[in-house]
């Protein structure tokens, strides 16, 4: 009994110590990225970056909110050089918390259209995604669909699903409506939409597609890349869902489809600023963009890069013409409106 205890204690101490030391960095030039993304294909890019520049890339991955909170509490002592997360609203928040710093780079300006860069150069978009309508062709004629607002009409009663208001993508969607339609308009949209919900919001974006497939609803509001993921899923049934359903880009005749981004910014207290900027430039370059965006079936932000066949098949579309900062500016208001109109 004693021996067992002793052995166990020894094991614990050794493994704890070794676990502590596992994160130790060497003295090589490196960039530490606090990243929400973690796709296997990214590693190839970082390796290529290392080949070119001899700069090692350390990825710390966690949820976006977690990363922001962590960065915030670490303050000056942070090891992070780059913050890479999705959703312009969140980036606005990171900026607001003074977690990022201004970067000036001709290359970045050249690679990335102005709409998808922060006004003050604190973050740079790397990929785009649109929040579109997904519908079942046997129950919905494509002529029936036009705008987001149209979904609030009588005709769509009990036929619409989307995720909860707590999800950042819906929050940003609403924020964009506040920016474009004003608070009144956004409020009308929210209450009308809630009225037409086929069920109380639940599940993730893929679940919305599945609900449409199942017949619970006819139209879902979701992100483009989930369709890409489902089409390439290892689960044949998911593929079936994605192959059956169709996508529609709303508001083409009016204000444009809602587009959001994933982006990266150099942290305020970065210890390796130059290296971080270099990595950013690399990721925005033609060389890296295709692989980077394709990893998640997203649109590359660099317009010189060819789209992958799937996105190509969906064709060009008109995006909302707003400064993406608005998604952050009106985020709180959007959240309040959704709560007040009963969007759960």
């Amino acid at each position, binding site marked *: 009994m004693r021996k067992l205890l002793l052995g166990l204690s020894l094991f614990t101490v050794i493994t*704890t110590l070794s676990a502590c030391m596992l994160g130790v960095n060497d003295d090589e030039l490196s960039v530490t990225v606090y990243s929400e993304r973690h796709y296997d294909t990214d590693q190839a890019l970082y390796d290529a970056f290392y080949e070119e520049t001899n700069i090692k890339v350390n990825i710390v991955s966690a949820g976006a909110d977690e990363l922001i909170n962590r960065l915030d509490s670490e303050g000056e*002592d942070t090891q992070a050089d780059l913050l890479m997360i999705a959703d312009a609203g969140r980036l606005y928040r990171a900026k607001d918390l003074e977690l990022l710093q201004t970067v000036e780079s001709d290359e970045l300006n050249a690679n990335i259209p102005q709409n998808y860069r922060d006004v003050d150069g604190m973050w740079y978009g790397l990929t785009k995604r649109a929040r579109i309508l997904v519908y079942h062709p046997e129950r919905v004629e494509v002529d029936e669909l036009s705008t987001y607002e149209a979904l609030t009409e009588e005709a769509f009663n009990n036929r619409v699903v989307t995720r909860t208001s707590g999800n950042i993508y819906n929050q940003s969607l609403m924020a964009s409506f506040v920016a474009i339609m004003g608070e009144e308009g956004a409020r009308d949209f929210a209450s009308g939409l809630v009225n037409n919900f086929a069920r109380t919001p639940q599940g993730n974006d893929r679940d919305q597609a599945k609900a449409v497939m199942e017949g619970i609803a006819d139209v879902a509001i979701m992100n483009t890349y989930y369709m890409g993921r489902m089409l390439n899923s290892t689960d044949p049934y*998911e593929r079936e869902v994605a192959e059956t359903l169709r996508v529609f880009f709303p508001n083409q005749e009016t204000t444009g489809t809602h587009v959001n981004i994933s982006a990266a910014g150099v942290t305020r207290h970065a210890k390796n600023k130059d290296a971080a900027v270099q990595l950013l430039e690399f990721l925005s370059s033609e060389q890296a963009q295709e692989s980077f965006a394709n990893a998640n079936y997203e649109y590359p932000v660099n317009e010189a890069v060819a789209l992958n066949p799937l996105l190509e098949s969906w064709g060009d579309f008109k995006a909302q013409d707003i400064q993406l900062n608005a998604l952050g500016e009106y985020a709180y208001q959007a959240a*309040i409106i959704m709560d007040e109109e009963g969007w759960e």
Partner: protein
Amino acid sequence: MCDYMFNKIKHHINVFSVTSILAAFFIVLPLFNILLELFTAPSSAWLHIREHLLAGYVINTIILIVAVGVFSGIIGTFSAYVVTRFEFKGRKVLSWFLILPLAMPSYIAAYVYADMTSYTGTFSRFMRSLHIPLSIDIMSMPGVIFIFVLTLYPYVYLMVKGALSKQSASFIENARLLGASKVRILVTVVLPLLRPAMIAGMLLVVLETLNDYGVVAYFNIRVFSFAIFDAWFRLGDIVSAIRLSAILMIIVFAVVFIERMIRGKRRYTIHIKTKPIERVYLKGYKKIVLPAILWVIMAFAFFVPVAQLLWYATKTYPLLFDLNFIYLVINSLSVALTATFLIVFIALMLANFNRGRQSSFKKSLLKITNLGYAIPGAVIAVAVLVFFIDADTTFYSIYHWFNEDSPRLLMTSSLLMLIFAYVLRFMAIGYNSIEASYDKIGEKFTEAAYLLKTSKLKTLLSIDLPLIKSGLISAAIIVFIDVIKELPLTLILRPTNYETLASQVYKFAREEMLQEAAIPSLVMISLSSLAIYIFTHRKKKGVVKHVR
């Protein structure tokens, strides 16, 4: 009189009291730190919450805990009763199988069932293949109740089973001699005697339910733990989050208070030798039906989700041999073992401190150290993080003196913070089990040893520990399993890039990569199941049994 006070204080200073006071101090400090935030003026976010959301949160939370409490009470008591009172084929195996759902973290069960009942999931496809138009919407209040009841009923089961096996047959035999029918005996003798155990088990279930975040977030169920994260992340208002935590804590204390009231005063233990209940062989239809019900419970609570996970694992098993995965397991194990040792040690000190004459000081101190279990993981995370950053900043000059290159946030970036949080949160579990064991043996052996010129520490080692060994091991096992399964604290407080099984599962599940989540999930479930197996198959030394 001055001398007397000095004497009295000197008398009370020993290794137990010092450790206990230090432990309580460190536990209270971070909580106190953030409670100060409560005295700031309410923000507009809070007013918004109060007007539109708060009522919903309270109602939903109460519905959830009442339903989960009641149903887990029923299932736990029913299964414990059948397994202890009756004899039937497969009873022995079932008696420890029924504990296994504890090895399944609620959030894993949630993800698996959500997947199975989704359009492309196993269950839906199965129904479609049978042309039965039945689909289950699990992401609802009934669904979440289902998940919690199935993964948490073992707490009640364990408590009731423990109480039943010690319940003297003489009570039942007496009642029979007095002409009472079996049902009447059950209702008027057995169940009332079981009430404390039932209530204690239900309390644990309720506390676990209130703490969960993974399940309610995924199913979009608007309860308090959900509210706290929502206020913190969606509305960006940490002060509102703290306010909500305070309300949640009030609910929890109310629940705990009610439990104490019902349980009554329990310092008194019976040391007479009790005659264990003799099992009755089941006959007729009962022979089939009763065990069948138990097996069905087992299936839904454990076998079905595990089978689904195994199926996914066959597609992603190469992950097992990945070096990263090995690190993952080592990380989880080392942290869990360290936390377990610490908790058991401090719990021992606390339990010893609690013996002897009761005083309000002792009672308050113990309440403080056991506070952690009632506080939602999210709040503990914030409190501990802020506390450690403050501490590091204060002590930086000392670090610097020792080592010029010392990082500023020395403790914060280490495992120390996470382990501290685990100790804060799980102290109560370790303590309760150890205290119960001490309660069973009473004080006489320890006092006899003192009078035989043995120091307090030596007595602890040579007399107390052997006598409470099984309680100690149970405490260690339950704490270990809980640490391995723990999610919110782990996510927020781990050192950068330090992945554990729980954090990895969460990551995959969130990304809807359920197939990849299968392997780490199964490892967690296996480790916990192994611990449960050890827990239930320990050889009981004949001698120790007679302490009761």
